[in-house]
C-alpha cells in the first residue's frame, strides 16, 4: 500500500530532476537572473511585510510585500552583499554568489525580544546550556543517509553502537544504553520495548533535520530514564508561509546489496497564514550482509516508514499534529540461534557460522517484525505579558513480534508478541523573562499498558502490566552577558501494576510505587567569544524496568537463564560533566568533555554461579542485582584547519566503568576508541560545489577492562579500519543535487567488535561501497 503511494512520487521527482539537468545545459544570457525569497521573524517565523532588501553593490533595493516576499529581477552573475532590514529588527547581511535564479530567505531578530522570547519550535533554545550537547544536521546528516539511528549517532564522540548483527543497532551514550537512555521522537518520549538489547529504536532517521545527543543526566527536564543521556530526533519546523519544496534521498550500498529511498514534500499556504504541512516516507531493503570471507545468512531486512505533519503557527496561538508509522522486518543471523551451552561452545570454536549459505534477500526465522505508530498533538498559547503555555498529547502503539525456529509448523506463530500502548500528556508553562531570569514549569502524566498475545504458546519474557506516571518540574535559567546559570528540580511518581502467572498458572498481581526527586544545577562561562566552559551536575533516576523485575527463563541468544528480582529499587545517578570548547572560526575548533558518573543501586545482570538443569542441559543462572557503579570518561573531538583546503579531524573516547562494591569492572562497556581523518575541501570545481574528500582511520582498542569470569569468551582483539569518502554538490537550476560516495572498511579487514552481541558467532561486515544522492527542490 505504502509502496504504491510513494512510487509515483519518486518517479515524478526523478523526472523533474532530469529536466532540470537539461535546462542547466542551455546557455543563458547574463543579467537575467532573479533573487527572491521571504523575510520572516526569527522567533515566531511570522512573515515581515515592508522589510527593506538592499543590494549594496548596486545601491538598489526593494520592499517585501504583505507576506514578506520579495523579488529582484535582471541581476547579473556575480557576488552581492544583500542587506535585509525591518523596523525594530536587527538588519541581516548575506554574501551571495549569484550564478542562477536564487532564493534567499532572511530571518531577522526583534531587538526587544531577543532576551524574552523562546523559540516556538522550542526545544533547541530551551536545552540546558550547561549540558553538553552535540548535533548532526545538514550535510553531515545527509552523508549518513541510510544508516540506522544507532549507527548514525556514533558520529558523535562518546556515543557507541550496541549491535546485534549488522541490522540491529542501539545507541550507547557514555557506556549506558537501552532503558538508561531517553529518546525523544519529535518531542515525544519513544515508548517501545527498549529494555531488550536486541530491540533497536523504532524510528526513521530520515524524519530528522537534526539529531542531537545530550550527554548529561537530564531527568529534571525529561523525566525518568534519562540517566545516560537523551537523544533528540527533531524534524525541521513546518513552513508557515506559501512555499512548496521537498527532497529525495537515494542510497545504494554494496554490502547487503541495500537500496534505500526516502522522500519528503512540504508546503505552506498564502491564503491561511501560518499553515504548513509535510509528508515524508522511506523504503529500505537489504539482503544478507557479508563479512570478508562469508555471507551472514539471514541478516536481510526491510523497512517502510511514513509520517505526516500539519501545523498552524501564529504568535499568540499555534498547534501541530504529527503522525508517524514505522515498520521493520529483520532477520537474525541463522547461525546465532543456539539451543544450549554445548551449541554455544561449538559456535565459539567454529570459524564460519553454521547454516551459512550464499547471498539472498530472504528473511526467515529467527526474525523480528516491529510496528510502531506515533500520533502527537501539540497546542500553545502565548501572551506578551505572561509567557507561553504548551499542551502536548501523544499516543503510541508498539507491536513487537519475534519469530523463532519452532517445531510442528509453528514457525509462522511468533514466540513473542508484545503490544505496548502508551499515552503522554505534558502541560508546560514558560514564564515571561523576569530580570534576566527565564524559566519554565510543567506537569506530565503518562499511562502505559503492555499486553502479551497468549497465542504464542510460549511463556512471555515480560508480563502484562499497567504503568501510571505523574511528574512536576521547575527550571530557572539566568542569562548574563558572559555567563549563564541554571537550576531545576523535579518530582516523579510511578505506579506499576503487574499481572503475571506463576509456574502453576496462578494469576499474581503485584503492585509497585516509586517516588523520586531529582535536581540539576549547571552553568556556562564564555571567556572571550572563542573559549567557553560548561559544567553540569545532574541527578537522574530510573525505576527498575519490567524485565529487571520479572524476566524469568532462558535467553536463547545468550544461553543463560535470566531472573528478575521484584525487590529491586530505583536506580539513582549523579552525573557531572564538564566541557571546554574552543572555536576561533579559523584554524582550531575543539571540544573536550570529562565526566564522572556515580550510580547508586545500579541494576545489572550477573551470574549467580548456579547451574540450572533443564531438558536442554544445564544453563548458568544470571540474576538482576544492584550495586554501586562509577563511570569515569573523557571525550575529545576537534578539527585543525592547517591549510585553506586541508584539515585534520580527530575524535576519541575513553571510559573506565567500575562496580565499586565488588571492585571489579562492568561488563559490555565501550573500549577505547580513536578516529583520525584528513579532509580536503574545495568550494568550487567547475560546476561542482562544496567538494569534500576524506580519508579516515579508526582504531578501537581491545577491551581489557572486563569483569573476571562472566563472559563466555575473551573480548575481541583491537582493530583498525580505513574509510574513504568523497562528496560534492551539483547545482541544477535553483536546486541542488548532492552526491556522496563512501567506502567503509577499505581493506576488507576481518575483525570482531566487543559491543556486537553476535561476536561469539561471526565476524563483522566487510568492505562496503555506498553511493548517496540527495536532491532538494
Amino acid at each position, binding site marked *: 500500500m505504502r509502496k504504491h503511494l510513494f512510487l509515483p512520487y519518486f518517479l515524478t521527482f526523478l523526472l523533474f530532476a532530469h529536466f532540470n539537468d537539461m535546462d542547466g545545459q542551455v546557455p543563458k544570457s547574463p543579467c537575467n537572473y532573479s533573487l527572491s525569497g521571504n523575510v520572516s521573524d526569527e522567533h515566531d517565523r511570522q512573515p515581515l511585510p515592508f522589510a527593506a532588501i538592499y543590494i549594496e553593490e548596486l545601491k538598489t533595493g526593494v520592499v517585501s510585500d504583505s507576506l514578506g516576499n520579495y523579488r529582484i529581477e535582471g541581476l547579473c552573475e556575480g557576488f552581492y552583499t544583500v542587506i535585509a532590514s525591518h523596523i525594530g529588527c536587527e538588519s541581516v547581511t548575506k554574501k551571495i554568489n549569484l550564478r542562477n535564479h536564487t532564493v534567499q530567505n532572511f530571518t531577522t531578530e526583534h531587538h526587544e525580544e531577543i532576551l524574552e522570547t523562546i523559540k516556538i519550535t522550542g526545544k533547541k533554545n530551551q536545552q540546558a546550556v550547561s549540558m553538553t550537547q552535540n548535533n548532526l544536521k545538514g550535510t553531515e546528516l545527509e552523508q549518513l543517509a541510510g544508516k540506522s539511528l544507532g549507527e548514525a549517532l556514533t558520529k558523535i564522540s562518546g556515543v557507541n553502537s550496541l549491535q546485534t548483527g549488522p541490522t540491529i543497532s542501539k545507541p550507547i551514550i557514555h557506556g549506558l544504553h537501552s532503558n538508561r537512555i531517553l529518546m525523544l521522537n519529535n518531542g515525544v518520549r519513544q515508548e517501545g520495548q527498549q529494555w531488550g538489547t536486541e530491540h533497536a529504536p523504532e524510528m526513521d532517521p530520515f524524519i530528522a533535520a537534526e539529531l542531537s545527543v545530550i550527554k548529561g543526566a537530564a531527568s529534571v527536564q525529561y523525566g525518568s530514564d534519562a540517566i545516560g543521556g537523551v537523544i533528540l530526533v527533531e524534524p525541521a519546523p513546518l513552513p508557515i508561509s506559501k512555499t512548496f519544496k521537498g527532497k529525495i534521498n537515494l542510497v545504494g550500498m554494496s554490502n547487503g546489496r541495500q537500496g534505500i529511498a526516502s522522500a519528503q514534500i512540504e508546503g505552506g499556504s498564502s491564503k491561511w497564514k501560518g499553515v504548513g504541512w509535510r509528508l515524508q516516507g522511506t523504503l529500505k531493503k537489504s539482503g544478507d550482509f557479508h563479512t570478508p570471507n562469508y555471507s551472514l545468512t539471514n541478516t536481510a531486512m526491510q523497512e517502510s516508514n511514513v509520517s505526516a505533519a500539519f501545523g498552524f503557527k501564529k504568535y499568540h496561538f499555534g498547534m501541530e499534529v504529527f503522525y508517524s508509522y514505522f515498520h521493520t522486518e529483520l532477520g537474525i543471523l541463522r547461525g546465532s*540461534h*543456539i*539451543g*544450549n551451552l*554445548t*551449541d554455544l561452545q561449538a559456535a565459539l570454536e567454529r570459524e564460519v557460522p*553454521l*547454516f551459512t549459505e550464499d547471498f539472498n534477500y530472504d528473511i526467515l526465522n529467527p526474525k523480528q517484525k516491529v510496528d510502531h505508530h506515533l500520533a502527537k*498533538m501539540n*497546542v500553545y*498559547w502565548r501572551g506578551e505579558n505572561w509567557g507561553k503555555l504548551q*499542551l502536548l*498529547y501523544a*499516543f503510541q502503539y508498539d507491536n513487537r513480534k519475534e519469530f523463532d*525456529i*519452532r*517445531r*510442528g509448523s*509453528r514457525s509462522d506463530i511468533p514466540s513473542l508478541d508484545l503490544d505496548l*500502548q502508551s*499515552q503522554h*500528556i505534558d502541560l508546560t508553562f514558560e514564564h515571561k523573562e523576569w530580570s534576566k531570569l527565564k524559566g519554565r514549569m510543567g506537569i506530565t*502524566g503518562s*499511562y502505559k*499498558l503492555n*499486553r*502479551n498475545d*497468549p*497465542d*504464542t*504458546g*510460549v*511463556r*512471555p519474557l515480560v*508480563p*502484562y502490566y*499497567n504503568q*501510571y506516571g505523574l511528574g512536576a518540574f521547575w527550571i530557572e535559567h539566568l542569562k548574563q552577558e558572559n555567563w549563564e546559570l541554571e537550576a531545576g528540580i523535579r518530582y516523579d511518581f510511578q505506579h506499576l501494576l503487574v*499481572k*503475571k*502467572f506463576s*509456574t*502453576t*498458572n496462578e*494469576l499474581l498481581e503485584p503492585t509497585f510505587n516509586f517516588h523520586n526527586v531529582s535536581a540539576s544545577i549547571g552553568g556556562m562561562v564564555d571567556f572571550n567569544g572563542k573559549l567557553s566552559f560548561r559544567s553540569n551536575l545532574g541527578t537522574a533516576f530510573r525505576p527498575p524496568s519490567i524485565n529487571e523485575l520479572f524476566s*524469568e*527463563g*532462558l535467553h536463547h541468544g545468550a544461553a543463560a*537463564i535470566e*531472573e528478575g528480582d521484584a525487590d529491586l529499587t530505583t536506580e539513582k545517578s549523579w552525573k557531572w560533566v564538564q566541557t571546554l570548547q574552543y572555536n576561533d572560526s579559523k584554524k582550531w575548533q575543539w571540544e573536550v568533555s570529562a565526566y564522572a558518573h556515580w550510580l547508586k543501586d545500579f541494576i545489572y545482570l550477573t551470574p549467580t554461579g548456579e547451574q*540450572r*538443569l*533443564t*531438558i*536442554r*542441559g544445564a544453563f548458568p543462572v544470571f540474576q538482576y542485582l544492584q550495586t554501586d557503579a562509577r563511570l569515569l570518561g573523557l571525550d575529545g573531538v576537534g578539527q585543525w584547519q592547517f591549510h585553506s583546503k586541508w584539515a585534520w579531524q580527530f575524535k576519541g573516547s575513553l571510559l573506565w566503568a567500575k562496580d565499586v562494591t565488588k571492585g571489579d569492572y562492568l561488563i559490555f562497556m565501550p573500549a577505547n576508541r580513536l578516529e583520525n581523518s584528513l579532509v580536503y575541501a574545495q568550494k568550487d570545481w567547475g560546476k561542482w560545489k562544496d567538494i569534500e574528500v576524506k580519508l579516515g582511520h579508526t582504531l578501537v582498542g581491545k577491551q581489557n577492562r572486563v569483569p573476571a569470569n562472566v563472559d563466555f569468551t575473551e573480548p575481541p582483539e583491537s582493530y583498525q579500519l580505513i574509510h574513504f569518502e568523497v562528496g560534492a554538490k551539483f547545482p541544477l537550476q535553483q536546486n541542488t543535487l548532492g552526491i556522496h560516495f563512501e567506502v567503509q572498511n577499505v581493506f576488507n579487514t576481518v575483525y570482531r567488535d566487543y559491543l556486537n552481541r553476535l561476536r561469539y558467532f561471526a565476524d563483522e561486515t566487510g568492505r562496503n561501497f555506498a553511493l548517496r544522492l540527495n536532491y532538494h527542490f
Partner: protein
Amino acid sequence: MKQYLFLFGLVLAIFSFSSCDKDDPTPPNEEELITTLTLTMTPEGGGSDVLFRFRDTDGDGGNDPVITSGTLAANTIYNATLELLNESVSPAENITNEVRSEGEDHQFFYATTAGVNLSFAYDDTDTNGNPIGLEVLFQTGEASTGQFQVTLRHEPNKTASGVSTGDISNAGGETDIEVIFDIEIQ
C-alpha cells in the same frame, strides 16, 4: 477559546478511556514444551522393561527435574523406544509423533562416558532413509558404570560424515534436548 477547551476535553477523554483497560491476561498454552523424556528398554528374549526418565513437569525453573535411571543386564540386547511428553498441560500431550512427522529435521544421539560397555544402533528411518533415533537397539557388554547422554538436534546435517551412524560431531543444528543419566550395567 471554546474549541481549545473542546480539544483539551477530547485529549482527556482519550486518555482516561484507554486507562480503563481492566481485562486480565490469559496464560499461554505451552504446547511446544517438552517436559518429559522416557526411554523404555525392553530386553530381547523377555524380562522386565528398564526405564530412563527425565521429568520436569513445570518446565524450566520452578521445581527441579526428577531423573530416573535404570540398571541394565550385562551382555544383553535391548529394544528401546523413546517417548516425549508435555505434562504441563492436562491431559498430557504426546510430542513423539510431532518429532517423528518432522523426522528429516530431527535426530537423537546417544553417547556414554568412557568405560561404559554400551553400543547402540538406530532402528528407524525418516522419509529420506536417514535415522531419527526414536527406535534404537542397545547392546550391553561386561558390567560397568558411568553416564549416558541423550541429545536431540533440530535441523542437523544428516548427510554429514558419521551422523547416520550416531556420531554427533559433524551434526550441527541446535540442541532441543540434552539430558544425562547415570547408568549401571551389571
